[in-house]
Protein backbone atom coordinates (compact mmCIF):
# COMPACT_ATOMS: atom_id res chain seq x y z
CA UNK A 1 0.00 0.00 0.00
CA UNK A 2 1.53 3.31 -1.05
CA UNK A 3 2.37 5.61 1.82
CA UNK A 4 0.46 8.64 0.56
CA UNK A 5 -2.69 6.55 0.66
CA UNK A 6 -2.40 6.22 4.40
CA UNK A 7 -2.58 9.87 5.27
CA UNK A 8 -6.31 10.44 4.72
CA UNK A 9 -7.09 7.33 6.70
CA UNK A 10 -4.77 8.36 9.49
CA UNK A 11 -6.27 11.82 9.66
CA UNK A 12 -9.78 10.46 9.47
CA UNK A 13 -9.09 8.05 12.28
CA UNK A 14 -7.72 10.73 14.56
CA UNK A 15 -10.53 13.10 13.66
CA UNK A 16 -13.13 10.53 14.67
CA UNK A 17 -11.33 9.70 17.90
CA UNK A 18 -10.62 13.28 18.85
CA UNK A 19 -14.14 14.46 18.14
CA UNK A 20 -15.63 11.61 20.14
CA UNK A 21 -13.24 12.30 22.98
CA UNK A 22 -14.04 16.02 22.89
CA UNK A 23 -17.79 15.48 23.17
CA UNK A 24 -17.47 12.80 25.80
CA UNK A 25 -15.07 14.85 27.87
CA UNK A 26 -17.20 18.00 27.88
CA UNK A 27 -18.69 17.41 31.34
CA UNK A 28 -15.31 16.61 32.85
CA UNK A 29 -13.78 19.75 31.35
CA UNK A 30 -16.68 21.82 32.65
CA UNK A 31 -16.49 20.28 36.08
CA UNK A 32 -12.73 20.78 36.26
CA UNK A 33 -12.88 24.38 35.06
CA UNK A 34 -15.82 25.33 37.23
CA UNK A 35 -14.24 23.80 40.32
CA UNK A 36 -11.68 26.62 40.22
CA UNK A 37 -14.28 29.37 40.03
CA UNK A 38 -15.06 31.48 43.08
CA UNK A 39 -18.64 31.74 44.35
CA UNK A 40 -19.08 35.04 42.50
CA UNK A 41 -18.58 33.55 39.02
CA UNK A 42 -19.60 29.90 39.45
CA UNK A 43 -23.15 30.64 38.35
CA UNK A 44 -22.25 32.06 34.96
CA UNK A 45 -21.73 28.51 33.68
CA UNK A 46 -18.69 29.08 31.52
CA UNK A 47 -15.87 26.61 32.14
CA UNK A 48 -13.14 29.24 32.05
CA UNK A 49 -12.05 29.83 35.62
CA UNK A 50 -10.66 33.33 35.28
CA UNK A 51 -9.87 34.63 37.77
CA UNK A 52 -9.07 31.22 39.19
CA UNK A 53 -9.52 30.51 42.85
CA UNK A 54 -8.87 27.65 45.22
CA UNK A 55 -11.84 28.74 47.34
CA UNK A 56 -13.85 25.59 46.58
CA UNK A 57 -10.98 23.25 47.35
CA UNK A 58 -10.34 25.09 50.58
CA UNK A 59 -14.02 24.75 51.53
CA UNK A 60 -13.93 21.06 50.75
CA UNK A 61 -10.86 20.44 52.86
CA UNK A 62 -11.83 22.63 55.77
CA UNK A 63 -15.56 22.03 56.15
CA UNK A 64 -16.02 18.59 54.70
CA UNK A 65 -14.63 15.26 55.89
CA UNK A 66 -13.35 14.51 52.40
CA UNK A 67 -10.50 12.18 53.34
CA UNK A 68 -12.70 10.16 55.63
CA UNK A 69 -15.36 9.87 52.95
CA UNK A 70 -12.84 8.86 50.30
CA UNK A 71 -11.40 6.28 52.66
CA UNK A 72 -14.85 4.89 53.42
CA UNK A 73 -15.72 4.78 49.74
CA UNK A 74 -12.44 3.09 48.90
CA UNK A 75 -12.85 0.46 51.60
CA UNK A 76 -16.41 -0.15 50.46
CA UNK A 77 -15.61 -0.30 46.76
CA UNK A 78 -12.55 -2.50 47.30
CA UNK A 79 -14.46 -4.77 49.66
CA UNK A 80 -17.40 -5.16 47.32
CA UNK A 81 -15.10 -5.78 44.38
CA UNK A 82 -13.10 -8.41 46.24
CA UNK A 83 -16.19 -10.20 47.48
CA UNK A 84 -17.92 -10.13 44.11
CA UNK A 85 -14.87 -11.45 42.26
CA UNK A 86 -14.32 -14.15 44.87
CA UNK A 87 -17.88 -15.26 44.45
CA UNK A 88 -18.16 -14.77 40.70
CA UNK A 89 -15.02 -16.52 39.43
CA UNK A 90 -15.89 -20.01 40.68
CA UNK A 91 -19.51 -19.50 39.68
CA UNK A 92 -18.61 -18.45 36.15
CA UNK A 93 -16.21 -21.37 35.94
CA UNK A 94 -18.83 -23.85 37.08
CA UNK A 95 -21.39 -22.44 34.70
CA UNK A 96 -19.02 -22.78 31.75
CA UNK A 97 -16.72 -25.68 32.31
CA UNK A 98 -18.57 -28.15 34.47
CA UNK A 99 -21.69 -30.07 33.63
CA UNK A 100 -24.22 -30.76 36.23
CA UNK A 101 -27.91 -31.03 36.63
CA UNK A 102 -29.58 -27.73 37.35
CA UNK A 103 -27.02 -25.74 35.41
CA UNK A 104 -29.64 -24.00 33.33
CA UNK A 105 -31.58 -23.28 36.48
CA UNK A 106 -28.51 -21.75 38.09
CA UNK A 107 -27.86 -19.70 35.00
CA UNK A 108 -31.43 -18.45 35.02
CA UNK A 109 -31.10 -17.60 38.68
CA UNK A 110 -28.08 -15.43 37.91
CA UNK A 111 -29.65 -13.83 34.86
CA UNK A 112 -32.90 -12.87 36.52
CA UNK A 113 -30.99 -11.42 39.46
CA UNK A 114 -29.52 -8.90 37.03
CA UNK A 115 -32.93 -7.57 36.20
CA UNK A 116 -34.47 -6.96 39.57
CA UNK A 117 -34.59 -3.19 40.11
CA UNK A 118 -32.12 -2.17 42.78
CA UNK A 119 -34.54 0.32 44.25
CA UNK A 120 -36.78 -2.50 45.34
CA UNK A 121 -33.95 -4.35 47.07
CA UNK A 122 -32.62 -1.66 49.33
CA UNK A 123 -35.44 -1.41 51.84
CA UNK A 124 -35.57 -5.14 52.59
CA UNK A 125 -31.78 -5.19 52.65
CA UNK A 126 -31.83 -2.28 55.07
CA UNK A 127 -34.21 -4.13 57.36
CA UNK A 128 -31.87 -7.13 57.23
CA UNK A 129 -28.73 -5.24 58.14
CA UNK A 130 -30.64 -3.51 60.91
CA UNK A 131 -31.52 -6.88 62.40
CA UNK A 132 -27.93 -8.00 62.04
CA UNK A 133 -26.76 -4.88 63.83
CA UNK A 134 -24.77 -3.85 60.76
CA UNK A 135 -26.15 -0.35 60.37
CA UNK A 136 -23.40 2.16 60.01
CA UNK A 137 -20.67 -0.48 59.72
CA UNK A 138 -18.44 -1.54 56.85
CA UNK A 139 -20.03 -5.01 56.64
CA UNK A 140 -23.38 -3.27 56.34
CA UNK A 141 -22.07 -1.14 53.52
CA UNK A 142 -20.27 -3.96 51.74
CA UNK A 143 -21.96 -7.34 52.11
CA UNK A 144 -25.44 -6.43 50.80
CA UNK A 145 -23.80 -5.12 47.64
CA UNK A 146 -23.08 -8.74 46.78
CA UNK A 147 -26.50 -8.44 45.18
CA UNK A 148 -24.65 -7.08 42.15
CA UNK A 149 -22.43 -10.15 41.69
CA UNK A 150 -24.64 -11.47 38.91
CA UNK A 151 -23.13 -8.93 36.54
CA UNK A 152 -19.61 -10.14 37.29
CA UNK A 153 -20.68 -13.76 36.85
CA UNK A 154 -22.24 -13.10 33.46
CA UNK A 155 -19.29 -11.07 32.17
CA UNK A 156 -16.71 -13.60 33.32
CA UNK A 157 -18.75 -16.44 31.93
CA UNK A 158 -18.76 -14.73 28.56
CA UNK A 159 -14.99 -14.52 28.55
CA UNK A 160 -14.59 -18.10 29.72
CA UNK A 161 -16.76 -19.28 26.89
CA UNK A 162 -14.56 -17.45 24.45
CA UNK A 163 -11.46 -19.36 25.59
CA UNK A 164 -10.50 -22.21 23.28
CA UNK A 165 -11.95 -25.48 24.60
CA UNK A 166 -8.71 -27.20 23.65
CA UNK A 167 -7.11 -25.64 26.66
CA UNK A 168 -9.41 -27.48 28.95
CA UNK A 169 -9.02 -30.70 27.04
CA UNK A 170 -5.30 -30.40 27.39
CA UNK A 171 -5.64 -29.72 31.08
CA UNK A 172 -7.99 -32.62 31.50
CA UNK A 173 -5.68 -34.96 29.61
CA UNK A 174 -2.95 -33.76 31.90
CA UNK A 175 -5.00 -34.99 34.79
CA UNK A 176 -5.77 -31.63 36.32
CA UNK A 177 -8.70 -31.41 38.66
CA UNK A 178 -11.33 -28.75 38.17
CA UNK A 179 -9.73 -26.66 40.90
CA UNK A 180 -6.32 -26.89 39.29
CA UNK A 181 -7.68 -26.06 35.88
CA UNK A 182 -9.36 -23.03 37.36
CA UNK A 183 -6.27 -21.86 39.12
CA UNK A 184 -3.53 -22.68 36.64
CA UNK A 185 -5.27 -22.51 33.28
CA UNK A 186 -8.31 -20.34 33.60
CA UNK A 187 -7.20 -17.57 35.93
CA UNK A 188 -4.09 -16.53 34.00
CA UNK A 189 -6.04 -16.38 30.77
CA UNK A 190 -8.90 -14.59 32.43
CA UNK A 191 -6.71 -11.80 33.70
CA UNK A 192 -7.73 -9.10 31.17
CA UNK A 193 -11.39 -9.89 31.65
CA UNK A 194 -10.94 -10.03 35.38
CA UNK A 195 -9.27 -6.63 35.37
CA UNK A 196 -12.14 -5.20 33.37
CA UNK A 197 -14.67 -6.69 35.76
CA UNK A 198 -12.74 -5.43 38.77
CA UNK A 199 -12.73 -1.96 37.28
CA UNK A 200 -16.42 -2.09 36.43
CA UNK A 201 -17.50 -3.30 39.86
CA UNK A 202 -15.18 -0.87 41.60
CA UNK A 203 -16.53 2.11 39.69
CA UNK A 204 -20.13 1.05 40.05
CA UNK A 205 -19.69 0.69 43.78
CA UNK A 206 -17.74 3.91 44.00
CA UNK A 207 -20.66 5.71 42.36
CA UNK A 208 -23.40 4.07 44.39
CA UNK A 209 -25.56 6.62 46.18
CA UNK A 210 -28.81 5.15 47.48
CA UNK A 211 -27.44 2.26 49.52
CA UNK A 212 -24.74 4.18 51.44
CA UNK A 213 -27.26 6.95 52.14
CA UNK A 214 -29.43 4.49 54.03
CA UNK A 215 -26.89 2.02 55.33
CA UNK A 216 -24.21 4.35 56.68
CA UNK A 217 -25.69 7.62 57.86
CA UNK A 218 -22.94 8.81 60.20
CA UNK A 219 -19.96 10.82 58.99
CA UNK A 220 -17.78 7.98 60.25
CA UNK A 221 -18.91 5.65 57.49
CA UNK A 222 -20.61 7.77 54.90
CA UNK A 223 -19.32 7.61 51.34
CA UNK A 224 -18.41 10.31 48.89
CA UNK A 225 -21.56 10.06 46.77
CA UNK A 226 -23.78 10.47 49.80
CA UNK A 227 -21.52 13.34 50.84
CA UNK A 228 -21.78 15.07 47.47
CA UNK A 229 -25.57 15.10 47.75
CA UNK A 230 -25.23 17.30 50.83
CA UNK A 231 -24.00 20.13 48.60
CA UNK A 232 -27.34 20.29 46.80
CA UNK A 233 -29.12 21.74 49.76
CA UNK A 234 -32.16 23.85 50.45
CA UNK A 235 -30.08 26.94 51.04
CA UNK A 236 -28.90 27.14 47.44
CA UNK A 237 -26.76 24.61 45.57
CA UNK A 238 -23.05 24.67 46.40
CA UNK A 239 -21.91 23.87 42.87
CA UNK A 240 -18.30 24.97 43.35
CA UNK A 241 -17.41 22.80 46.36
CA UNK A 242 -19.45 19.93 44.90
CA UNK A 243 -17.44 19.98 41.69
CA UNK A 244 -14.15 20.39 43.56
CA UNK A 245 -14.94 17.39 45.75
CA UNK A 246 -16.00 15.41 42.68
CA UNK A 247 -12.75 16.19 40.90
CA UNK A 248 -10.77 15.03 43.92
CA UNK A 249 -12.94 11.94 44.11
CA UNK A 250 -11.97 10.90 40.58
CA UNK A 251 -8.31 10.51 41.56
CA UNK A 252 -8.63 7.11 43.25
CA UNK A 253 -10.79 5.83 40.41
CA UNK A 254 -8.27 6.97 37.82
CA UNK A 255 -5.55 5.21 39.81
CA UNK A 256 -7.52 1.97 39.79
CA UNK A 257 -8.11 2.43 36.07
CA UNK A 258 -4.41 2.86 35.40
CA UNK A 259 -3.54 -0.32 37.27
CA UNK A 260 -6.36 -2.36 35.78
CA UNK A 261 -5.94 -1.09 32.24
CA UNK A 262 -2.24 -1.96 32.28
CA UNK A 263 -3.21 -5.52 33.12
CA UNK A 264 -5.68 -5.51 30.28
CA UNK A 265 -3.03 -4.17 27.93
CA UNK A 266 -0.43 -6.63 29.22
CA UNK A 267 -2.52 -9.58 28.35
CA UNK A 268 -3.15 -7.99 25.06
CA UNK A 269 0.56 -7.96 24.32
CA UNK A 270 0.97 -11.55 25.43
CA UNK A 271 -1.75 -12.61 23.10
CA UNK A 272 -0.13 -10.77 20.24
CA UNK A 273 2.55 -12.14 17.96
CA UNK A 274 5.90 -13.08 19.46
Amino acid at each position, binding site marked *: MPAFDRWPRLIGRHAVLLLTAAVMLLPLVWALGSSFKPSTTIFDMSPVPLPASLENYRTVFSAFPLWRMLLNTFVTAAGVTALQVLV*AVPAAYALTQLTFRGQRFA*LGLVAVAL*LVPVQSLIIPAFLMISHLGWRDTYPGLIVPQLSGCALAVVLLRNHL*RALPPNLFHA*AALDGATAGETLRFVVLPLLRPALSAVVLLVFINTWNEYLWPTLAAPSPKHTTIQAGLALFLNQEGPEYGPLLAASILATVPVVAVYLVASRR*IADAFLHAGPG
Partner: protein
Amino acid sequence: MTADTEVASRAAGRRAGGRGTAPHRPGGPAPRARSWLYLGPATISLAVWVYGPLVFTGVLSFLHWNLVSDHPSWAGLGNYARLVDQPEFPHAAWHTLLYAVGILPFATVVPMALAIMLWKKPGAVSTGYRALLFLPVVLAPVANAIAWQFILDPLQGAANGLLQDAGFGPRNWLGDPATALPVIVLITAAKVVGLNLLLFGAALASLDRRTLEAARLEGATEWETTRFVVVPQLRRTAVLLGLLSLVVVWPWIFTNVAVLTQGGPNGATDNVYYRLYTYAFTFFDAGTASAAAIVISLAFAVLLGAYAVLGRRRADPGPGSGPAGSGPGPAGARPERGRSHASV
Protein backbone atom coordinates in the same frame (compact mmCIF):
# COMPACT_ATOMS: atom_id res chain seq x y z
CA MET B 1 -7.22 -23.34 14.90
CA THR B 2 -3.59 -24.18 15.02
CA ALA B 3 -3.08 -20.98 16.95
CA ASP B 4 -5.51 -22.19 19.56
CA THR B 5 -3.74 -25.46 19.95
CA GLU B 6 -0.47 -23.64 20.38
CA VAL B 7 -1.88 -21.33 23.02
CA ALA B 8 -3.34 -24.32 24.77
CA SER B 9 -0.12 -26.22 24.86
CA ARG B 10 1.75 -23.10 25.91
CA ALA B 11 -0.64 -22.57 28.78
CA ALA B 12 -0.55 -26.20 29.73
CA GLY B 13 3.21 -26.23 29.55
CA ARG B 14 3.50 -23.06 31.56
CA ARG B 15 1.51 -24.42 34.41
CA ALA B 16 2.66 -28.03 34.66
CA GLY B 17 6.21 -28.04 33.46
CA GLY B 18 5.89 -31.50 31.93
CA ARG B 19 3.88 -33.54 34.31
CA GLY B 20 3.55 -36.62 32.21
CA THR B 21 3.66 -39.15 34.99
CA ALA B 22 0.44 -38.14 36.69
CA PRO B 23 -2.32 -40.70 36.59
CA HIS B 24 -4.89 -39.91 33.97
CA ARG B 25 -8.08 -38.66 35.44
CA PRO B 26 -10.78 -37.21 33.22
CA GLY B 27 -11.47 -33.63 34.15
CA GLY B 28 -15.21 -33.83 33.93
CA PRO B 29 -18.06 -34.04 34.24
CA ALA B 30 -17.46 -32.97 37.78
CA PRO B 31 -19.61 -34.38 40.53
CA ARG B 32 -22.70 -32.33 41.07
CA ALA B 33 -21.81 -31.61 44.64
CA ARG B 34 -18.56 -30.02 43.66
CA SER B 35 -20.26 -27.91 41.00
CA TRP B 36 -22.58 -26.51 43.58
CA LEU B 37 -19.61 -25.87 45.82
CA TYR B 38 -18.26 -23.59 43.14
CA LEU B 39 -21.63 -22.05 42.56
CA GLY B 40 -22.50 -21.92 46.22
CA PRO B 41 -21.04 -18.54 47.16
CA ALA B 42 -22.77 -16.76 44.28
CA THR B 43 -26.02 -18.63 44.81
CA ILE B 44 -26.09 -17.84 48.49
CA SER B 45 -25.27 -14.19 47.83
CA LEU B 46 -28.05 -13.86 45.33
CA ALA B 47 -30.49 -15.81 47.47
CA VAL B 48 -29.84 -13.60 50.46
CA TRP B 49 -29.47 -10.21 48.85
CA VAL B 50 -31.65 -10.46 45.74
CA TYR B 51 -34.20 -13.23 45.99
CA GLY B 52 -34.94 -12.77 49.68
CA PRO B 53 -35.70 -9.07 49.20
CA LEU B 54 -37.60 -9.92 46.02
CA VAL B 55 -39.91 -12.27 47.92
CA PHE B 56 -40.38 -9.58 50.55
CA THR B 57 -41.19 -7.11 47.78
CA GLY B 58 -43.62 -9.59 46.29
CA VAL B 59 -45.46 -9.88 49.59
CA LEU B 60 -45.51 -6.10 50.02
CA SER B 61 -47.05 -5.72 46.59
CA PHE B 62 -50.19 -7.42 47.85
CA LEU B 63 -50.49 -5.28 50.97
CA HIS B 64 -51.46 -1.78 51.94
CA TRP B 65 -48.61 -1.20 54.32
CA ASN B 66 -46.06 1.55 54.81
CA LEU B 67 -43.65 -0.76 56.71
CA VAL B 68 -44.22 1.22 59.89
CA SER B 69 -47.82 0.79 60.99
CA ASP B 70 -48.89 -2.28 62.94
CA HIS B 71 -51.82 -3.00 60.71
CA PRO B 72 -50.95 -4.03 57.20
CA SER B 73 -54.11 -4.74 55.25
CA TRP B 74 -54.56 -7.06 52.30
CA ALA B 75 -54.69 -5.24 49.00
CA GLY B 76 -55.13 -8.14 46.65
CA LEU B 77 -54.27 -6.92 43.19
CA GLY B 78 -55.12 -3.35 44.19
CA ASN B 79 -51.56 -2.10 43.93
CA TYR B 80 -51.17 -3.66 40.50
CA ALA B 81 -54.47 -2.19 39.39
CA ARG B 82 -53.24 1.23 40.47
CA LEU B 83 -50.24 0.90 38.17
CA VAL B 84 -52.40 0.53 35.11
CA ASP B 85 -55.28 2.73 36.26
CA GLN B 86 -53.16 5.83 36.02
CA PRO B 87 -51.43 6.79 32.82
CA GLU B 88 -48.02 7.37 34.40
CA PHE B 89 -46.74 3.83 34.63
CA PRO B 90 -47.69 2.67 31.11
CA HIS B 91 -46.31 5.96 29.82
CA ALA B 92 -43.08 5.38 31.76
CA ALA B 93 -42.87 1.84 30.39
CA TRP B 94 -43.14 3.15 26.84
CA HIS B 95 -40.45 5.72 27.48
CA THR B 96 -38.25 3.06 29.06
CA LEU B 97 -38.38 1.27 25.72
CA LEU B 98 -37.42 4.49 23.93
CA TYR B 99 -34.45 4.91 26.24
CA ALA B 100 -33.38 1.31 25.59
CA VAL B 101 -33.59 1.71 21.82
CA GLY B 102 -31.70 4.99 22.04
CA ILE B 103 -28.91 3.62 24.22
CA LEU B 104 -28.38 0.40 22.29
CA PRO B 105 -26.12 1.73 19.50
CA PHE B 106 -23.96 3.48 22.08
CA ALA B 107 -23.62 0.22 23.96
CA THR B 108 -22.67 -1.84 20.92
CA VAL B 109 -21.76 -0.40 17.53
CA VAL B 110 -20.07 2.80 18.63
CA PRO B 111 -17.75 1.41 21.34
CA MET B 112 -17.04 -1.67 19.21
CA ALA B 113 -15.93 0.49 16.29
CA LEU B 114 -13.76 2.61 18.55
CA ALA B 115 -12.32 -0.44 20.30
CA ILE B 116 -11.39 -2.10 17.01
CA MET B 117 -9.85 1.12 15.76
CA LEU B 118 -7.66 1.30 18.85
CA TRP B 119 -6.89 -2.40 18.92
CA LYS B 120 -5.58 -2.42 15.38
CA LYS B 121 -2.87 0.10 16.18
CA PRO B 122 -1.55 -0.85 19.59
CA GLY B 123 0.81 1.60 21.17
CA ALA B 124 1.03 4.61 23.37
CA VAL B 125 -1.34 6.69 21.26
CA SER B 126 -4.07 4.09 21.51
CA THR B 127 -3.52 3.68 25.22
CA GLY B 128 -3.86 7.43 25.54
CA TYR B 129 -7.10 7.51 23.58
CA ARG B 130 -8.46 4.61 25.56
CA ALA B 131 -7.75 6.46 28.80
CA LEU B 132 -9.24 9.69 27.48
CA LEU B 133 -12.40 8.00 26.34
CA PHE B 134 -12.70 6.21 29.65
CA LEU B 135 -12.42 9.39 31.70
CA PRO B 136 -16.13 10.34 31.48
CA VAL B 137 -16.88 7.19 33.44
CA VAL B 138 -14.85 8.23 36.47
CA LEU B 139 -16.63 11.50 37.21
CA ALA B 140 -19.22 11.18 39.98
CA PRO B 141 -22.70 10.82 38.44
CA VAL B 142 -24.12 13.84 40.22
CA ALA B 143 -21.17 16.05 39.15
CA ASN B 144 -21.51 14.76 35.61
CA ALA B 145 -25.20 15.68 35.59
CA ILE B 146 -24.47 19.14 36.99
CA ALA B 147 -21.80 19.76 34.39
CA TRP B 148 -24.35 18.94 31.70
CA GLN B 149 -26.84 21.19 33.45
CA PHE B 150 -24.30 24.01 33.06
CA ILE B 151 -23.61 23.19 29.41
CA LEU B 152 -27.27 22.84 28.46
CA ASP B 153 -28.57 25.73 30.57
CA PRO B 154 -31.24 27.49 28.51
CA LEU B 155 -30.18 30.99 29.61
CA GLN B 156 -26.42 30.84 29.93
CA GLY B 157 -25.33 27.42 28.64
CA ALA B 158 -22.59 26.96 26.05
CA ALA B 159 -24.55 24.38 24.04
CA ASN B 160 -26.99 26.96 22.77
CA GLY B 161 -24.18 29.25 21.71
CA LEU B 162 -22.44 26.50 19.78
CA LEU B 163 -25.56 24.98 18.27
CA GLN B 164 -26.87 28.36 17.29
CA ASP B 165 -23.79 28.86 15.18
CA ALA B 166 -24.54 25.53 13.58
CA GLY B 167 -28.04 26.68 12.74
CA PHE B 168 -30.06 25.14 15.55
CA GLY B 169 -31.88 28.04 17.19
CA PRO B 170 -31.63 28.60 20.92
CA ARG B 171 -33.62 25.91 22.63
CA ASN B 172 -34.47 24.73 26.06
CA TRP B 173 -33.15 21.28 25.24
CA LEU B 174 -34.24 19.71 28.50
CA GLY B 175 -37.43 21.75 28.84
CA ASP B 176 -38.90 20.72 25.52
CA PRO B 177 -40.79 17.42 25.63
CA ALA B 178 -39.59 16.66 22.11
CA THR B 179 -35.86 16.90 22.85
CA ALA B 180 -35.59 16.07 26.55
CA LEU B 181 -35.39 12.29 26.23
CA PRO B 182 -32.95 12.24 23.30
CA VAL B 183 -30.72 14.66 25.21
CA ILE B 184 -30.74 12.47 28.32
CA VAL B 185 -29.90 9.49 26.10
CA LEU B 186 -26.98 11.33 24.49
CA ILE B 187 -25.42 12.55 27.70
CA THR B 188 -25.79 9.12 29.27
CA ALA B 189 -24.30 7.59 26.14
CA ALA B 190 -20.93 9.21 26.88
CA LYS B 191 -20.55 6.99 29.92
CA VAL B 192 -21.85 3.89 28.19
CA VAL B 193 -19.40 4.32 25.31
CA GLY B 194 -16.48 4.85 27.68
CA LEU B 195 -17.25 1.77 29.71
CA ASN B 196 -18.08 -0.57 26.86
CA LEU B 197 -14.98 0.54 25.00
CA LEU B 198 -13.04 -0.91 27.89
CA LEU B 199 -15.05 -4.12 27.91
CA PHE B 200 -14.72 -4.58 24.14
CA GLY B 201 -11.02 -3.95 24.65
CA ALA B 202 -10.91 -6.79 27.15
CA ALA B 203 -12.68 -9.07 24.69
CA LEU B 204 -10.30 -8.07 21.90
CA ALA B 205 -7.36 -8.77 24.18
CA SER B 206 -8.15 -12.46 24.15
CA LEU B 207 -8.42 -12.45 20.38
CA ASP B 208 -5.57 -13.65 18.24
CA ARG B 209 -3.92 -10.89 16.30
CA ARG B 210 -2.44 -13.36 13.85
CA THR B 211 -5.79 -14.01 12.23
CA LEU B 212 -5.70 -10.35 11.28
CA GLU B 213 -2.29 -10.62 9.69
CA ALA B 214 -3.26 -13.76 7.85
CA ALA B 215 -6.21 -11.95 6.34
CA ARG B 216 -4.03 -9.02 5.38
CA LEU B 217 -1.50 -11.31 3.75
CA GLU B 218 -4.29 -12.78 1.70
CA GLY B 219 -4.94 -9.30 0.35
CA ALA B 220 -8.07 -8.42 2.28
CA THR B 221 -8.72 -4.70 2.62
CA GLU B 222 -8.76 -3.11 6.01
CA TRP B 223 -12.55 -2.94 5.95
CA GLU B 224 -12.86 -6.57 4.91
CA THR B 225 -10.50 -7.64 7.65
CA THR B 226 -12.56 -5.77 10.20
CA ARG B 227 -15.90 -6.84 8.86
CA PHE B 228 -15.18 -10.52 8.22
CA VAL B 229 -12.42 -11.36 10.68
CA VAL B 230 -12.75 -9.14 13.75
CA VAL B 231 -16.44 -8.30 14.01
CA PRO B 232 -17.68 -11.89 13.85
CA GLN B 233 -15.45 -12.76 16.77
CA LEU B 234 -16.93 -9.91 18.79
CA ARG B 235 -20.53 -10.66 17.96
CA ARG B 236 -21.30 -12.53 21.12
CA THR B 237 -19.61 -9.91 23.24
CA ALA B 238 -21.60 -7.22 21.46
CA VAL B 239 -24.88 -8.98 22.12
CA LEU B 240 -23.93 -9.54 25.73
CA LEU B 241 -22.79 -5.97 26.30
CA GLY B 242 -25.89 -4.67 24.58
CA LEU B 243 -28.03 -6.60 27.00
CA LEU B 244 -25.90 -5.83 30.02
CA SER B 245 -25.81 -2.14 29.20
CA LEU B 246 -29.57 -2.13 29.27
CA VAL B 247 -29.23 -3.41 32.81
CA VAL B 248 -26.45 -1.20 34.16
CA VAL B 249 -27.36 2.02 32.40
CA TRP B 250 -30.43 2.82 34.50
CA PRO B 251 -28.62 4.19 37.53
CA TRP B 252 -26.86 6.69 35.25
CA ILE B 253 -30.04 7.66 33.48
CA PHE B 254 -31.65 7.87 36.88
CA THR B 255 -29.15 10.40 38.23
CA ASN B 256 -29.34 12.48 35.07
CA VAL B 257 -33.12 12.55 35.24
CA ALA B 258 -33.17 13.29 38.97
CA VAL B 259 -30.78 16.23 38.62
CA LEU B 260 -31.82 17.62 35.26
CA THR B 261 -35.52 17.05 34.63
CA GLN B 262 -37.15 15.22 37.57
CA GLY B 263 -39.02 13.14 35.01
CA GLY B 264 -40.44 16.15 33.19
CA PRO B 265 -41.36 17.99 31.08
CA ASN B 266 -44.80 16.38 30.92
CA GLY B 267 -43.26 13.04 31.89
CA ALA B 268 -41.06 13.05 28.78
CA THR B 269 -37.99 11.74 30.61
CA ASP B 270 -39.83 9.43 32.96
CA ASN B 271 -39.02 5.73 32.97
CA VAL B 272 -40.05 2.77 35.06
CA TYR B 273 -37.05 3.03 37.37
CA TYR B 274 -37.61 6.70 38.09
CA ARG B 275 -41.29 5.92 38.56
CA LEU B 276 -40.50 3.13 40.99
CA TYR B 277 -38.28 5.51 42.93
CA THR B 278 -41.04 8.13 42.91
CA TYR B 279 -43.60 5.68 44.25
CA ALA B 280 -41.25 4.43 46.94
CA PHE B 281 -39.41 7.55 48.05
CA THR B 282 -41.51 10.52 47.01
CA PHE B 283 -45.00 9.12 47.56
CA PHE B 284 -43.98 6.66 50.31
CA ASP B 285 -46.30 4.15 48.73
CA ALA B 286 -44.50 0.87 49.39
CA GLY B 287 -47.33 -1.24 47.94
CA THR B 288 -47.41 0.42 44.54
CA ALA B 289 -43.62 0.62 44.41
CA SER B 290 -43.39 -3.09 45.14
CA ALA B 291 -45.97 -3.90 42.50
CA ALA B 292 -43.96 -1.85 40.02
CA ALA B 293 -40.77 -3.71 40.98
CA ILE B 294 -42.46 -7.07 40.48
CA VAL B 295 -43.90 -6.02 37.14
CA ILE B 296 -40.50 -4.77 35.95
CA SER B 297 -38.75 -7.96 37.05
CA LEU B 298 -41.39 -10.21 35.49
CA ALA B 299 -41.40 -8.29 32.22
CA PHE B 300 -37.64 -8.62 31.94
CA ALA B 301 -37.71 -12.27 32.93
CA VAL B 302 -40.25 -12.96 30.19
CA LEU B 303 -38.18 -11.08 27.60
CA LEU B 304 -35.10 -12.95 28.74
CA GLY B 305 -36.87 -16.30 28.56
CA ALA B 306 -38.11 -15.56 25.07
CA TYR B 307 -34.64 -14.52 24.04
CA ALA B 308 -33.08 -17.67 25.46
CA VAL B 309 -35.61 -19.89 23.71
CA LEU B 310 -35.09 -18.13 20.39
CA GLY B 311 -31.32 -18.26 20.87
CA ARG B 312 -31.40 -21.99 21.57
CA ARG B 313 -33.49 -22.65 18.52
CA ARG B 314 -30.97 -20.86 16.33
CA ALA B 315 -27.97 -22.55 17.90
CA ASP B 316 -26.30 -25.75 16.73
CA PRO B 317 -27.76 -28.90 18.09
CA GLY B 318 -25.57 -30.14 20.87
CA PRO B 319 -25.00 -29.49 24.48
CA GLY B 320 -26.20 -25.91 24.22
CA SER B 321 -24.69 -23.81 26.89
CA GLY B 322 -23.11 -26.91 28.31
CA PRO B 323 -19.50 -27.25 29.27
CA ALA B 324 -16.84 -26.50 26.77
CA GLY B 325 -13.87 -28.27 28.22
CA SER B 326 -15.40 -31.40 29.57
CA GLY B 327 -16.50 -33.01 26.36
CA PRO B 328 -14.41 -36.03 25.47
CA GLY B 329 -13.98 -35.06 21.79
CA PRO B 330 -10.51 -34.89 20.36
CA ALA B 331 -8.71 -31.60 20.68
CA GLY B 332 -9.60 -29.16 17.95
CA ALA B 333 -12.46 -31.23 16.63
CA ARG B 334 -15.11 -28.77 17.69
CA PRO B 335 -15.44 -25.38 16.08
CA GLU B 336 -13.95 -23.29 18.80
CA ARG B 337 -16.41 -20.45 18.66
CA GLY B 338 -19.25 -22.36 17.18
CA ARG B 339 -21.75 -21.67 19.87
CA SER B 340 -22.94 -18.54 18.21
CA HIS B 341 -26.08 -17.99 20.22
CA ALA B 342 -25.66 -15.41 22.87
CA SER B 343 -25.44 -16.35 26.45
CA VAL B 344 -28.03 -14.98 28.76
